[in-house]
């Protein structure tokens, strides 16, 4: 049972432990990169069914990004879309027997959350400059600074733990049902897994987007003369 919960070490490189989830994540990154590169190399003006479907998906994602960061869509969209595609593939790949979903490893979800944490500051400083960005930590009152700092840390931890907990708990439930009831009974649970994988990928990307938008729009709202909105 324990081997099903925790990632297995498949290779040791000195003190570094290469787990099966990490290997899957790296392989998935390479596959996604190659597919994206291959597909974008032969885009056609009169698209076939595959190109049309993918274009629809990409446009829907871009529109979702545009709703939240209208003036910086071109900068933010690649990161968010990359998160969405990777998480979609990573959450669903666990359904293939023998493969481990990378997102049920807390190390990998932490790495993704850390990326989101860093990119919030990156986009914030890029759009408004260092001092203006740092000043928003003192808004509306300077004594609220500790609350801002705590919220930065907790929301990053929450982002990592949420994805990890959701993906792992569903796997665990399927496993327990399999042990209790036997063959083919966990299939409905696995169908729920598909829905949950989609929802969690959406939520992770959306929360990253909301955090980035919060970092960017602190000054946009002021420039437009409107109240601050997330």
């Amino acid at each position: 049972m324990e081997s099903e919960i925790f990632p297995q070490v498949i290779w040791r490189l000195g003190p570094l432990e290469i787990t099966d989830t990490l290997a899957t994540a790296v392989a998935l990154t390479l596959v996604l990169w190659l597919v994206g590169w291959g597909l974008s190399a032969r885009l056609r003006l009169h698209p076939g069914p595959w190109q049309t479907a993918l274009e629809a998906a990409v446009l829907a994602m871009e529109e979702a990004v545009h709703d939240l960061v209208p003036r910086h869509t071109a900068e933010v969209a690649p990161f968010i879309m990359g998160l969405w595609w990777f998480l979609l593939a990573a959450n669903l790949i666990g359904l293939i027997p023998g493969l481990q979903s990378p997102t049920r490893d807390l190390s990998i979800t932490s790495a993704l959350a850390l990326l989101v944490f860093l990119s919030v500051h990156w986009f914030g400083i890029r759009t408004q400059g260092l001092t203006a960005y740092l000043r928003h930590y003192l808004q509306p009152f300077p004594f609220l600074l500790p609350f801002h700092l705590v919220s930065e840390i907790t929301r990053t931890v929450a982002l990592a733990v949420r994805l990890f907990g959701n993906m792992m708990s569903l796997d665990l439930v399927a496993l327990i049902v399999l042990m209790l009831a036997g063959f083919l009974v966990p299939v409905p649970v696995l169908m729920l897994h598909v829905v949950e994988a989609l929802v969690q990928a959406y939520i992770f990307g959306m929360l990253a987007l909301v955090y980035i938008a919060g970092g960017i729009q602190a000054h946009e709202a002021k420039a437009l003369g409107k109240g601050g909105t997330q």
Partner: protein
Amino acid sequence: MTHDISWIVLGSTVAAALGIGIGVLGPGIGMGRAIAQALDALARQPEAEKILMRTLFIGLAMIESLAIYCLVIILIILFRNPLLAYVLQGG
């Protein structure tokens, strides 16, 4: 020493079962209230569906993470119990 271990196992099991039950109760009530309010708002203003749904999903994710914290703590208690390791090493 076996006495200690059996007590720790008993305590962990009871704590895990009670913990997940109580820990899911609060988020359950919270999510129910959030969905009810969102449906209420949706019935009043169907044209605001997009922003309502987005906010609802984000809010649900926030509430849900409370239950997930609970689950993670319980998994630690059940599978990586630090007290059990301490007793085993000490003895």
